């Protein structure tokens, strides 16, 4: 596996605040990585560093390039949709496609037109005339028509209704992702992307507190629903987090074999959302 993104000891300081604190990780080609973290955890700062929008300390390489110093080369092979990177409202869809074709060497006009033909977005419409969902469809179609190696999505579906959100991720998997391309995605709506991720990374207070593949998640973490004495016994195995669910205790364990816990109650793999809460709150406790 080739590593597309390599970060070693990456830090970013804003005045007294260490937004990203000595972070190291790798993203391999062909993966769909979810970067999950609460507000102010350093997600956006980290993404900006990856996209060369901000400088940082440490060693950061994206597609073998220094993102901050080799931005133009990087932008040929990287795309991003961010909630804050909105399409200009004054532009016509046809103008936007023409501009992309003229400035982006890896953009395919025919592919974009084909993708848009499945939507209600008309070529002569101005962006300001489109609904928010349609603008996102347009943006995703443009991005999908770029033969880029890495796609970065920062809260791409913020403010969209559930139908557009489902469609967005459906299109992302069907049209964009081909096993060769790589996606890095952040969102608060973890439940919606849980099933499409191959890798997951949690970030909190500027530090990475979890970095694993979805496949190995089940082997590392388990959630036990137990009550009464069983809950007390389970507690001796050192759950990283515990909460009350309908009078029972839901405990999340890290690195405890399932055989040891199997007799104590109902066992399952925690959802990403639950695991996230466990990691963040557990660390705080």
């Amino acid at each position, binding site marked *: 596996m080739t590593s597309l993104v390599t970060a070693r000891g990456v830090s970013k300081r804003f005045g007294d605040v260490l937004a990203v604190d000595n972070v190291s990780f790798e993203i391999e080609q062909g993966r769909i990585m979810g970067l999950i973290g609460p507000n102010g955890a350093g997600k956006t700062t980290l993404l900006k560093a990856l996209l060369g*929008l901000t400088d940082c300390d440490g060693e950061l390489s994206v597609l073998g390039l220094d993102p901050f110093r080799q931005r133009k080369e990087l932008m040929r092979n990287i795309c991003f949709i961010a909630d*804050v*990177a909105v399409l*200009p*409202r004054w532009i016509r869809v046809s103008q936007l496609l023409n*501009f992309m074709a*003229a400035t982006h060497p890896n953009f395919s006009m025919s592919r974009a037109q084909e993708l848009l033909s499945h939507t209600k977005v008309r070529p002569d419409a101005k962006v300001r005339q489109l609904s928010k969902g349609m603008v996102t469809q347009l943006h995703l179609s443009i991005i999908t028509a770029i033969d880029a190696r890495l796609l970065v999505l920062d809260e791409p579906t913020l403010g969209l209704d559930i139908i557009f959100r489902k469609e967005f991720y459906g299109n992302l998997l069907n049209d964009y992702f081909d096993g060769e391309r790589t996606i890095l995605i952040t969102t608060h709506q973890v439940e919606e992307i849980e099933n499409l991720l191959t890798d997951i990374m949690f970030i909190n207070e500027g530090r990475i507190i979890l970095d694993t593949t979805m496949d190995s998640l089940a082997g590392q973490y388990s959630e036990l629903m137990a009550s009464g004495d069983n809950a007390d016994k389970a507690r001796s195995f050192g759950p990283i987090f515990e909460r009350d669910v309908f009078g029972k205790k839901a405990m999340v364990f890290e690195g405890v074999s399932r055989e040891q816990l199997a007799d104590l109650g109902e066992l399952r793999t925690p959802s990403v959302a639950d695991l996230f809460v466990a990691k963040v709150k557990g660390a705080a406790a």
Partner: protein
Amino acid sequence: MISNQLSLVRRELWEHRAIYIAPLVIALVMSLMSLTGQVTISAFGHEVDLAIIGASSAGEIERQAAITAILMVFTSIFALGAWILMIFYSLDALYAERRDKSILFWRSLPVTDAETVISKLLTAVLVIPLTAFAFVVVTHLLNLILWSIWLSIQGGDAGHLLWSAAPLFDNWAATLIIAVAMPLWLSPLIGWFLFVSVFTRRSPLLIAFLPMFVVPMLEKMVSSTSLFWDAIFVRSVRPPLFKGIDVSRIFDEDNFQIAADTASLLAKIDLARFLSSPSMWLGLVVCGLFTTAAIYIRRYRDES
């Protein structure tokens, strides 16, 4: 690089349609005024006949001078319009993309900040004046045709009175030189406007113009000199592009005494003086500094 610039400049024309709509409106309004003027003066049948006879018997130089003056009235309105467009355009150029939050989208494309900022500078100093120049030519022709038709109806000889006497190519060549040279002369101001538009968070017009008045006032109060006032305002209206007289004096009463000179606008232009003017080159350097600063800010500023 070149093809990217063309796409980027085309993008500016999509966003700022006033660049061609404003001169189009000026052309239409002035042609309409020509028409209503014709209708109005047609009512004075006898006087019109006398005027045509008088004009027919005037010397060729006088006719050329008179038509040059009329052509210049049209040109100067376009020039004023282009200058206003350049001010508003350059104040908006790097501000609008932050106001509508599209800057990160533009920056997600493989286009450098230098390319983007330079495309906006080129639009201001080249595209706006050259568009205005094209409209000047069209408006001159259109109005000469309108007046030819009117003259023919009145029984005058338009070919003799207008076309043979109109030093069109002289006039257009001179106008083209002015259209290229004046923005270069004013480029430090355009650079300043672009620089303001890249950093200001609100009201670029106010932020740009306030210091242009406050700084010379402070200078006057502190040292009772007027270096800034001269550099900003006196310099702006005194380009070293003309022989002997200033732009402001072209329409002076004296003109009727130097009519032979007035007939040729090209003869008034002193390109050697312009190109050898240290003040012009210094202005370009100032523009370059402001532009570099604008590129730097767009490149290295953290948008959050």
